[in-house]
């Protein structure tokens, strides 16, 4: 069974309906490590060695965070800056993360429609997430499209429950024999046929 690491970054988790719903079932799921960055490092004093050990121990990494100003909350940038060291994560000797799978799970206030060339955010989510994609590429990791819960302000509790179910199914799917070809036409992991059925 593949092991999943959820790197969770929300500065005010206690106020987030959407994320509370998404996380609730995963917290105690077998082979899933839920790692709450803001709770562990309230002073941003990230323990690099511990973080690297966690990465080594897991096969699938998830950057789980709300999308703030088209990017992640600050601590996730801090995490990247400190943990993904030269000649460890990348560079001539940096091969530790190779062939691991990584992707973003995001929540956004704006709906899917506003993230496109015609919408007021002009660019797509995939375009905004390019820095994460390229980070994964440089580290030799397999980057998947994001799993996105969008328009959270207008989602009912039932909607959120559905998303939470999808999230859990997705993790089950990835832990099993997942075939990447299924992703050929997906901009979002949400679009996987298996999940939408």
């Amino acid at each position, binding site marked *: 069974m593949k092991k999943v690491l959820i790197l969770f970054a929300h500065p005010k988790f206690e*106020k987030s309906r959407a994320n509370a719903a998404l996380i609730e079932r995963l917290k105690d799921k077998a082979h899933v490590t839920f790692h709450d960055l*803001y709770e562990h490092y309230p002073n941003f004093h990230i323990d690099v060695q511990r973080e690297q050990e966690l990465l080594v121990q897991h096969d699938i990494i998830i950057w789980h965070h709300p999308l703030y100003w088209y990017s992640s909350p600050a601590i996730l940038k801090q995490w990247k800056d400190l943990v993904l060291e030269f000649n460890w994560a990348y560079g001539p000797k940096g091969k530790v993360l190779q062939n691991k799978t990584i992707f973003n799970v995001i929540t956004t206030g704006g709906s899917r429609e506003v993230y496109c060339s015609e919408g007021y955010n002009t660019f797509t989510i995939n375009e905004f997430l390019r820095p994460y994609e390229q980070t994964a590429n440089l580290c030799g990791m397999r980057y998947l499209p994001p799993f996105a819960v969008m328009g959270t302000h207008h989602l009912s509790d039932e909607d959120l429950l559905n998303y939470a179910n999808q999230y859990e199914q997705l993790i089950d799917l990835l832990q099993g024999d997942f075939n990447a070809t299924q992703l050929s036409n997906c901009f979002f992991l949400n679009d996987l046929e298996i999940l939408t059925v």
Partner: protein
Amino acid sequence: MSGSLLFEAIVFLAGAIICVSLAKRLGLSSVIGYLLAGVLIGPYVFGFIGEEGEDILHFAEFGVVVMLFLIGLEIEPKNFWNMRKSILGMGGIQVTLTIALTYIFFAIMGFEWQVALTVGMAVALSSTAIALQTIKEKGLMNTTFGSSSFSILLFQDIIVIFMIGALPLLSNSSDITEGDTAHTTGTLIESLPIGLQTLAIILSVVVIVLAGRFVVVPMLRKVAKTGVRELLIAAAFLIVFGISYLMEFVGLSPALGAFLGGVVLSTSEFKHELESTLEPFKNLLLGLFFMAVGASINFVVIAKSPLTIGGILLAIVIIKALVLFITGRIFKLKLDQNVLLTFSLAQVGEFAFVLLSFAFQLNILEQEQMDMMLVVTAVSMSLTPILALLNERLILPKIGTKELIKRPMDHIAKSQKVILVGFGHFGSTIGRFLRSHGVEATILDFDSNRVDFLRKMGFEVYYGDATRQDLLESAGIAEAKLLICATNKVSVAKAITKIVKEKYPHVGLMVRSKNRYDAYELLNLDVHNIYRETLDTSLTLASDALSKLGFRKYTLNRQVQNFIKYDEASLRRLATEPKRDDDYIFKARKELEQQEKLLENDFKRGIVAYDNHWDSDHIRKQLEKSNEA
């Protein structure tokens, strides 16, 4: 005119005050002022002080004794060892070359070889009093010139012991005249055969070293425990007087003994305390010494043979300057530094008085020769500040390469940038953390047991009352960047603050405060960096407690910072209020009400009232509002 002790005291003090302040106003060294005052009140100008000038010189030599004790205190045996190359090298070359050249000069002049050699030895010694006083006054101690001068002077201070030891060997008559009345009765050296005299000298050195370790330091600890300040002053003088007495009893120069005593005590925790206790006395006594030198310039002798004396003086100064310049060259001093060195040490020093009169006692010198050399010595000393002035105004400006950046002195323990007052639990944590960053603070503490213990652990800790300006001075506050006051006594913190604010405004002040009320007092003294020991720790505990109850750590972290910010602001608001008690209480009550209100507000809005942008509920509500509108 003279005779009354009071009258003499008035003459000396008034002369000093008038001439030194005049010299200072003209931008000259205080040494010039003292010397001028001495000449003026001496027997040949106003005649306030008559033939007794010599007695005064004898008394004022005590200033040199105290100074050498203080110099000794500054030289820890360890630094002494580190400086060995420049001390032995520079000092050795300077002394040997000067003796050789002077010997040749006087031999050519037709003096006996014993006379020429004695004069050569006397001349080789420069004036520690004048040179170091001038260097310190100008703040040049930390330049290569300063440390070179110090090395050479130190070598001279040591070699003079051997010179005095060697003088009896030069004496060709075994019947020693009854010289100085003060020395005739009961001095050991005179009662010993010549060969054993050297042994006596070595023995007395050993006695000083042992007594310092096993008698003086334990005594100082006892004195420190009483907590009576003036006892320490008494003890300091007891040490200096004691050494002087011992030395005179043996028949040696008290100054040398004092220097050795100083070196022995320099590793004790009382170093700074002794320094600051004796410093003011030293300066006054040195002033007296300089005045006595001025007063002792025998113008009658000069008038008898002005050309001979002038010639000898000129020759000696030129020989000394030449040798110093060559020494500087050999040790690769930069030109400007070398020129400074050349001019500052080109005089004949106070040890010459000792050597010459000793040589006279031993019948090596005739009265006339001694008088002449004493005049040369006194005049050359008086010339030093004037030469230095000429150098500074005329020569140095033409040499471009002034050493602008003060290099930390290689040898003498470099003056520290941070002074840490109080080394209890609070201060020691600070000290440890600074040290882990390579910052060695100069630590002052008032608990002599702790000081002793910490010194054994390898910390640089000194015993003393940090509210005394002179102690702060000797701890190097003039060059300090920061003073951290980690004492828990607000009275001490306030006293230090006042001194620093007034005298050393360039020093950054960081003060520990026990609580709000101490903080108010410090704020009213215009201290900006105040650290309440009750603030951070209690908030850390409170936020950990809330975390255990289920609150999120990052939010708590932000709230703690908010709380500190709020509390600091309220602290500053309250501190600026006038200190009328009733009014103050009224204000405090109002502030308390305000805080209650704020807490209540926090409660109503939920404890997490800030950082709304991270709160999606908040944003949604705003969205709804704007949609309704």
